[in-house]
């Protein structure tokens, strides 16, 4: 059953294109990784689920959550969806937790808004903290964000996301600001909770390996488009799109030490500067004339003219 559906989602901010015809289905209980370089539109994609787009954004196409068109929700419906059904975890926990209020305030405010009593909310918050591996929960609730390390704080954010028992978690680079050992912790917590609750997950990262480890499927984005979708298990074997391959190939681990890395010429494009044809055409080593002129259609797994050839 499809829980979340992007259907030709197009977003422009003040007339500048940001997302172009993003189409993606996420099944209930599934974990989908959204991978791509900076500015490719990953955050915009998940933010459009929550209707958290910048002022002046225009949206085309639809995003459906549980069958309902998110764009058509009224204020109450939107609030209900945000507070009960969908939770978001952001990249930088420091920016996301109100710096002047306590961790307890942060954790309980949504519950309190939904009518939960103060002591009950506190109890549940403490329980959620313990669940994500934060010890001494009652003391933590009294503390303020600056008194916690980044890793701890990200766990607080995840605890807050889990607290209302959402059906979908949108995790926007939840580990980028953390070091690798802490990243492992956080990712493990997310995976564990997903197993326990059957929550659906959209996981954004720059790191293909990480996405492959956490998710069932991976969608690769470039310049506001999804260029390839493939099962995580077959990331290395089945990647077809030249961009996905370029990403895999340019990681230092992809070649033996001492060898030169396989680089992609040029700089990543954004949806605004993307060429008229294939968005990757100007950096693609295989590009042909038609790549530059004609937009390839997304055929099941990737958007590339040369899919058969490569």
């Amino acid at each position, binding site marked *: 059953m499809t829980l979340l559906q992007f259907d030709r989602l197009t977003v422009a901010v003040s007339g500048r294109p940001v997302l172009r015809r993003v189409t993606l289905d996420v099944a209930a209980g599934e974990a989908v990784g959204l991978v791509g370089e900076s500015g490719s539109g990953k955050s915009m994609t998940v933010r459009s689920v*929550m209707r*958290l787009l910048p002022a002046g954004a225009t949206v085309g196409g639809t995003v459906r959550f549980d069958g309902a068109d998110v764009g058509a929700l009224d204020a109450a419906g*939107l*609030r*209900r*969806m*945000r*507070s*009960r059904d969908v*939770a*978001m975890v*952001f990249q*930088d926990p420091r*920016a*996301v*937790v*109100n*710096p*002047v*209020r306590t961790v307890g*305030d942060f954790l309980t*405010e*949504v519950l309190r*808004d939904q009518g939960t009593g103060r002591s009950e909310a506190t109890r549940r918050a403490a329980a959620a903290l313990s669940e994500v591996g934060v010890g001494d929960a009652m003391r933590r609730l009294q503390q*303020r964000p*600056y008194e916690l390390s980044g890793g701890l704080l990200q766990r607080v954010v995840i605890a*807050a996301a889990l607290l209302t028992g959402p059906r979908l978690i949108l995790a926007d680079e939840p580990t980028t600001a953390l070091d690798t050992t802490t990243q492992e912790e956080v990712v493990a917590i997310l995976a564990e909770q997903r197993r326990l609750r059957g929550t659906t997950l959209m996981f954004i990262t720059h790191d293909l390996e990480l996405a492959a480890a956490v998710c069932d499927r991976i969608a690769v984005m470039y310049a506001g488009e999804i260029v390839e979708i493939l099962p995580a298990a077959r990331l290395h074997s089945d990647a077809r799109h030249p961009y996905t391959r370029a990403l895999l190939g340019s990681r230092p681990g992809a070649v033996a030490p001492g060898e030169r890395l396989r680089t992609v010429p040029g700089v990543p494009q954004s949806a605004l500067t993307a060429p008229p044809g294939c968005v990757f055409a100007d950096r693609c080593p295989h590009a042909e004339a038609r790549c530059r002129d004609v937009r390839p259609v997304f055929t099941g797994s990737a958007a590339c003219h040369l899919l058969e050839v490569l």
Partner: protein
Amino acid sequence: MTGFVLRRLAGVVTTVAVASVVIFGALYLAPGDPASLLAGGNQPDPAALAAIRERHHLDDPFPVQYWHWLSGLLSGDPGVSLVLREPVTALIGARIGTTLLLVAYAAVLILTLGVATGVLAAVGGRRVDRALTVLTTVLMAAPAFVAAILLIWLFATTLSWFPVFGSGTGFADRIHHLTLPALALSGGYVAYVSRITRSEVRAELAADHVAAARGRGLPRWTVLRRHVLRNAAPPIVAVSGVTVAGLFAATAVAEQAFGVAGLGSLLVQSAARQDLIVVQALSLLLVTVFVVVNMLVDVLNATLDPRLAKEGAP
């Protein structure tokens, strides 16, 4: 927190101490001879002048004079006005109530109107923002004495809603009398606080934690109150604090224009009459009030945002 308060308190004491030297020193250097003032309007003979100098320690070296003044101040006796022959305490005592009330009144206006219009400009959409921008621009560029005359003309002479002058007796009557001065006094500052509020609220609205709070399905009003305003408060409070602390002295123009007897006009009149004793005491009082109010604001801010109380915080 206690450490923070103590540190700030020490700062206040140093500032006031240094200010006292500066004030006394500046007036010591000011041209004009206090002795001739003390001698009255007539052409005084040198012997009489010398006697007056002797009596008022005017020939002593600077440190001795300063010490006389300071020990007088510390024992609660700042001296007697050179011109009015009244104890400075009596002069200040007679006016401080009015000034306090005027400042409090103006402060309330500044805070409520300034913050309200600032928030409105930040969240009220483009048209409201622009209208308020025009309004605050004009308010900021209009001197208090111009505002005073307009207010008198409109509300006192034409509409007769408020009295033209004076400070009134009894609380209600005083409020009635001080309404126009408070409005004239606060106009520019309302605009200033409104601007600050607007920019701080806008900055806060753009913050990730606000987006996150909205993303968690909190109602708009809750987000505005508990995340935007709560977080924008410290800088707004800081600016308002400086503004309000400065009001004590800025009342001069409004008091002058509305015939209100307060500390500001006393300062201006005393300075004009070269009444140094009054000017010294009053300047130091205003400086002290300023730094104390600022300290209170800092402490308030530190409770709002404990990060500010940490050592080394700006």
